[in-house]
């Protein structure tokens, strides 16, 4: 058994878990954060992506014990109260989801992608960077559209107006 302590969505949590407990199972079963999903056994589908210390991580490929001391943010933790995160809003606006199962992982991957590309994104980059997330419903068309729109919205929001005019 391992004693772990980590921040989950801004709250410090402590737990004793079986050594083999994966981070995704810790989040789902110990923390009740069932928005993070398990879609495969081989770290391929990306339904379980969360942020660990600010980076997108497949929580099925990390032990809960390895995450001890880290700051973890899940799909439940990215909205600002009642205000959706811009990526969440863009997925809704552009119909970037159907059954919703891959969606949390897609959104967590997308927020990480956008933050790593402050210069902006193009379709080819978005498609290449979605390599680790599988969606069976949307054909990715509207997911790509949503991420591009969110990237634009976030870059507009982060740039002061004067700078933009210049």
């Amino acid at each position: 058994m391992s004693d772990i302590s980590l921040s989950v969505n801004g709250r410090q949590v402590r737990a004793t878990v079986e050594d083999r407990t994966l981070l995704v199972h810790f989040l789902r079963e110990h923390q009740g954060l069932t928005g993070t999903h398990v879609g495969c056994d081989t770290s391929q589908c990306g339904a379980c992506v969360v942020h660990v210390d600010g980076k997108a991580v497949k929580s099925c490929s990390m032990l809960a014990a390895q995450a001890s001391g880290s700051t973890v943010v899940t799909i439940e933790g990215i909205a600002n109260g009642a205000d959706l995160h811009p990526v969440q809003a863009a997925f809704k606006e552009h119909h970037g989801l159907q059954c919703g199962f891959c969606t949390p992982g897609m959104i967590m991957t997308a927020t990480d992608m956008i933050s790593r590309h402050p210069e902006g994104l193009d379709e080819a980059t978005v498609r290449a960077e979605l390599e680790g997330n599988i969606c069976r419903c949307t054909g990715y068309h509207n997911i790509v559209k949503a991420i591009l729109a969110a990237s634009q919205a976030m870059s507009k929001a982060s740039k002061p107006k004067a700078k933009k005019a210049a």
Partner: protein
Amino acid sequence: MGMEGIGARVTRKEDKRFITGSGRYVDDMVVPGMKHAVFVRSPHAHAQIKKIDVKGAQAMPGVIAVLTGKELKADGIGNLICGWMIHSKDGSPMKMGAWSPLAFDRVRYVGDAVAIVIADTKGEARDAAEAVEVTYKELKAVVDAVKALEKGAPQLHPEADGNLIFDWEIGDAKATDAAIKAAHHVTRMKIVNNRLVPNAMEPRAALGHYDKGDDHYTCWTTSQNPHVARLVMSAFYNVAPENKLRVIAPDVGGGFGSKIFIYPEEVVCLWASKKAGVPVKWVADRTESFLTDAHGRDHHSTVEMAFDKNNRITGLKVDTVANLGAYMSLFSSSVPTYLYATLLSGQYNIPAIHANVRTVYTNTAPVDAYRGAGRPEATYLLERTMETAARELGVSPAELRRANFITQFPHQTPVIMCYDAGDYGASLDAAMKAADYAGFAKRRDKARKAGKLRGIGMSCYIEACGIAPSAAVGSLGAGVGLWESAEVRVNAVGTIEVLTGSHSHGQGHETTFAQLVAGRFGVPIDSISIVHGDTDKVQMGMGTYGSRSGAVGMSAIVKALDKVEAKAKKIAAHLLEADEGDIVIENGALKVAGTDKNVPWFQMALAAYTAHNLPGGMEAGLKETAFYDPTNFTFPAGCYICEVEVDPETGVTEIIQFVAADDFGNIINPMIVEGQVHGGIAQGVGQAMLEGAYYDPSGQLLTASYMDYTMPRADDLPSFKVSTSNTPCPGNPLGIKGCGEAGAIGSPPAVINALTDALGIADFTMPASPSRVWAAAQKH
């Protein structure tokens, strides 16, 4: 309110829970005292079970129970069935082999369940499952349907001599043979439709809960049709009587057909929850899904298409061998028969058609409906043949199709279907324009200079949706009726609940169904809730598959709304002291036409429930129910064009553009319809270029994970150009045809027609992986 009614691009009401991580899927459900199950599965494709020793497993930490097929049988749990009777052409009924939810004497495919282990945690159940000792005597296996028919092939079921389930035919053999004999030209092809795994992103799951106090079962399951699951588990599998069994399909993470069927696991979890005295949850891991979800397609066909000297089709003869796997899944028999061969006329006037279909047992996972179900196989066969015929005849593929299009409606084909409406030329024109078909030669020449091979291909598909008129399918062998039900409850404050037998697992019913009601009564869409997926809440319904939720499910809602409207108008007329015939409903109020006299919707609703001042003899309340049974199938159709570029050095094929021009009839929400088409195309392109389920000769599934089975990923696909040119369906009140399966039906032949055009070859077997394309390019 027009902004929220029919035709509006309303963003989805259900999205909020999915984008915030608040969706509720079966694996998210927790019941007090719940334990976790792991199934012990056969590692062999074909073997006798000599002995199952569970003692070691039972002694493992955390283990509650280890149960086997013998105990299941002893408790009277029934065998799994196929619910659609097909008769062979000699009149004999299909040969259904026994399928016990837990195998006890013999296993017939890798993944066949032999025991269930229930423990405190999934990890403990998994550990204990490995300690269950099953002694097998291995038998020879056969995985290929054609080989399974050969003399001396391993035999799967004593009921099915020679592994043949049925040998069925449709159409006029004599007339077709005569047409081929008299033909000016005959195009002949061998067509393989590759085996696929549906791969909904949410793995199948079941949570069975037996309540001792009430002698009542609840099953949470990943189902597209919870009522059908309850009916089948009650009437055939003897789990519990219907009134003692509640089936809930909460949020379901995609289905694509694979979650229509009632699988062994939900039956066993329910039974085990009583036997072990604990709620039992099972969630498939991905490899388990690959091994045991019903697969799709897997047809081997030959086709002969006859033409006269004017390039008119005079006859079509098809012979198909369809692999149904180790057991007959719930609707497996209907897929290669009435969902396939009845569509072999395509969009064309074909005076004589004959198809012969043999279905076969093999040591592979059961095969059943997967997005399109039979119609993709028909379309692929027909559209590959049309393209090849055009090349052989030296005419434009577009013009050969156009010359043979059906243009007069209704049109009775020689294979049962009567097409009600369509304009195939309009879709063809729209697709060719969107693809700049005329400019292709220039693009091809430019690519050639860069050492690349460009090709363009098209596919004109038709499908039968809106499944289905109950009497018609009953006469063809269906064990169920395929109507749909709806209940509309107007609450006392005027808010509305619609309870529907349709089930949404990505299709957006909570939005489109609400749009229908909002548009009808002019009430805000937020005041309408769609309730589905729970047999305790919703009256009997038939569920979602075959692109039926719009055409059949919404039609049932329309019928119920008609009744609500009639009563509402009576109440309003009484309150307004007006004539019932003068009442109109506009912007959330019931008005006396041509006056300013009105009663707001909510006030009318309140009056219905206070019942202080109702017309004489009227019952209180405002709630109406309807069952809608369609009078015909619907016939979505369209034209898809694909342009590819092949690098002959590497075999890598890039999709340069993909155009879809569909006719779906009237559309409720264009945004959602486009999304359905995008997803369908991705699955169709996946079939054509990436996907394939492969068994080795011993019956081991070689493609049992996402590391081996190539799922379409974002960088495998382009953005799609989609449009519609719609002819309303005359057969239902909303004029809807359905859009859920079109993309998966129309796209594979468009891709392969483009690829064979690029390579200058006639035959190519899907999927177009780089190695296979490279090999084909070298031969050329």
